[in-house]
């Protein structure tokens, strides 16, 4: 076969071009550590990476949601524990008042109960770190409880201005929880009210006000027959809320661990899908460079030769 002068240089350029292209690809893989950068490099891997990226991003968001709910749940837990001790105090006062006839003792107890009502109001209007009222249901922007006082400064009624709904937050795909609780729910359905609920018979403010009034009037029999059992219902209700909060917090912790694990797995899968095998890439790069060098040397050697060199 005759080898024409141009076919040699054409071939030489074609081969050099192929080797250069290979070198560029391998060089880029070595410097970025990625075997896939564009959709055309590996369409299936790109598809998977985009999906994993979306899932990992959602996983990170779930973690952030969990942290947010945990904050509210923690604020709520503190408030509920304070409330429990407050109710216990009120119960002790009620129990202690049974059989006491000294009006000064009863009056002093009544003053103490008045303070407890004020404290309970303060707890009822607790705000979380973001300034949201946690016992108003979804009506988080205004204090959920407001009190009416008489001329002597005693609270005579406490009104609930919140609602009975709670906002659910997604902490895992399809799994929602809520750290919100309504302060009062007398509808007979939905989330239980912390201070009053028709299903449990709890109605803390009303019971405390009655206790105060009975202490002031010296009606100790009513205290033992009505207020003490009522306060027990209130305490039971708070205890139920506290255990619900504990369950929520442990659910959040578990979901947080799962979400973190999932993000780690997804990140690692993305790395697996796209990472270049450095040992292999460097070896190939070295081989390609050797081939390129050999092609250049042999090419220039052969192209430098011509019959004209030997003709005189």
């Amino acid at each position, binding site marked *: 076969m005759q080898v024409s*002068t141009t076919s040699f240089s054409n*071939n030489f350029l074609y081969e050099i071009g192929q080797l250069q292209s290979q070198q560029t690809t391998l060089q880029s893989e070595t410097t970025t550590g990625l075997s896939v950068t564009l959709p055309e*490099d590996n369409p299936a891997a790109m598809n998977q990476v985009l999906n994993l990226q979306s899932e990992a991003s*959602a996983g990170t968001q779930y973690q952030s949601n969990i942290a947010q709910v945990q904050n509210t749940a923690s604020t709520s837990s503190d408030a509920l524990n304070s409330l429990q001790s407050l109710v216990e105090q009120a119960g002790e006062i009620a129990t202690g008042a049974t059989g006491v006839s000294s009006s000064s003792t009863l009056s002093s107890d009544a003053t103490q109960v008045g303070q407890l009502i004020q404290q309970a109001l303060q707890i009822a209007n607790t705000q979380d770190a973001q300034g949201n009222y946690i016992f108003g249901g979804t009506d988080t922007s205004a204090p959920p409880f407001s009190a009416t006082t008489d001329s002597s400064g005693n609270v005579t009624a406490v009104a609930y201005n919140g609602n009975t709904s709670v906002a*659910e937050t997604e902490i895992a795909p399809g799994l929602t929880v809520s750290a919100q609780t309504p302060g009062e729910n007398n509808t007979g359905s939905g989330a239980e009210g912390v201070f009053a609920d028709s299903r449990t018979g709890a109605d803390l403010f009303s019971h405390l006000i009655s206790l105060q009034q009975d202490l002031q009037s010296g009606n100790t029999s009513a205290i033992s027959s009505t207020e003490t059992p009522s306060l027990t219902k209130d305490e039971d209700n708070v205890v139920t809320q506290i255990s619900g909060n504990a369950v929520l917090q442990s659910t959040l912790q578990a979901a947080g661990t799962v979400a973190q694990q999932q993000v780690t797995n997804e990140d690692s899968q993305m790395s697996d899908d796209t990472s270049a095998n450095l040992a292999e890439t460097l070896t190939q790069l070295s081989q390609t460079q050797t081939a390129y060098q050999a092609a250049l040397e042999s090419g220039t050697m052969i192209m430098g030769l011509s019959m004209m060199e030997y003709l005189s």
Partner: protein
Amino acid sequence: MASRSLSVQQEEMAVSGQNLANVNNPSYADEQLDVSESAPLPTPVGDEGTGIQINGISESRNPLLDSQIQAEDSVTGSLTAQQTNLQNAESYVDEQITSTSSSATPDSPNGLAADLSNLFDSFQSLSADPSDLSLRQSAVASAQQVTAQFTQVSAQLSTVQANLNTDVQNDVTSSNQDLSTIASLNQQIVAAQASGGSADQLVDQRAQTLENLAGLANFSTSAESNGAINVSIGGVAMVSGVSETDSLETYNPGNGQLQVQAQNAGTQITLTGGSIAGEITARDGALASLQSGLNTLASQLITKVNTIYSAGYDLDGNTGQDLFTGANASDIGVNSNVAADPSQFQAAGAPGAAGDNTVALALAQLGDQNVAGLNNQTFSANYAQTVSDLGSAISSVNDNLNTSQAVGQMLTNDRAATSGVSLDGEMTNLIQYQKAYEASAEMITTLNEMLQTVVNMKTT
């Protein structure tokens, strides 16, 4: 006889000179002087040779290889046009995996995939604290980012399509120029051959023009006995003998995407090779799918989000607004009211409850739902599929182009073996011709000396 030998050797040298001069001319085919022994003279002792004679100059051209190269040029032309334009689209889509440091997880941070994730994540954030104005602002900003990315990519893809229409138009013009050139060269070749002259140079030019045309549009040829080559494209005769019977023109079938038809015959031509076919294939194939995928995604996003969102209530208890405006990827936008005042984001399911996140949560959960209008995929998965489909289209074009270029290189080598000029071969030939010339000259010198001897015999 010696004198004729001298002139033949001179002519051989002239042909070698011509070959050497065209050593780097890709359209040139190696020429040879066709010689034969001249007719002998009958003598009493038998036929006596009279030397050598020239029959003509021929070139080493293989029409089969030429047509194979033309066919491969068409394939390469089509694939190159597709590759260039689809890679443009790929860069506009901007889904590029990056990894800034060895420990960083590789991801694609700039494209729509990340923007869609951010949108649904910002809805999630908002659902966790729907009264927070900064989270409302962030949700609106994410929505604006998604819409900006949709409209930007859509506009860029439209530009690529518009450029492809311009390319089709330009390539049709170039094809018509090549067809005219071929008809004109046919005319000159027929005239030259009819008068017994050499048409090699014209044939070389015509071969080059045919190869140019092959890069633009695939065609079929048939040779006529008078040296002319007939060219037909898509079954319509464009060059018949010495005349250009038809030409290509673009027409708008109604959707603004130019197609090609024969100007005189008026029939639509479906090209299967050449850059025109590549441009049309890229435009109506992968690019159109990409745009349609993005439009469907945007349109579903607008509908699904607005259906949920419009039933919600903002912080002031207002309802009924849409979050997204527009109908598809080209005109999707964010409602200017909520963009100006994020408190108007309708996150609540009921009025007067700042902590109500019903709508924000439903919007967040929309990200995980399979949408019937998106082949039962989630928004993110559907977009990932669209990007992956574009990647597959480019990857397939890349593979085919590599193969086509390798085949083209092989065919070019085959042709070079037949028609190419070898510098060493021509130099060897030159030495041969020089020696033959010297021998013939020596013969004349010898004859001269013999004649001189005879003349000297008479004078002495």
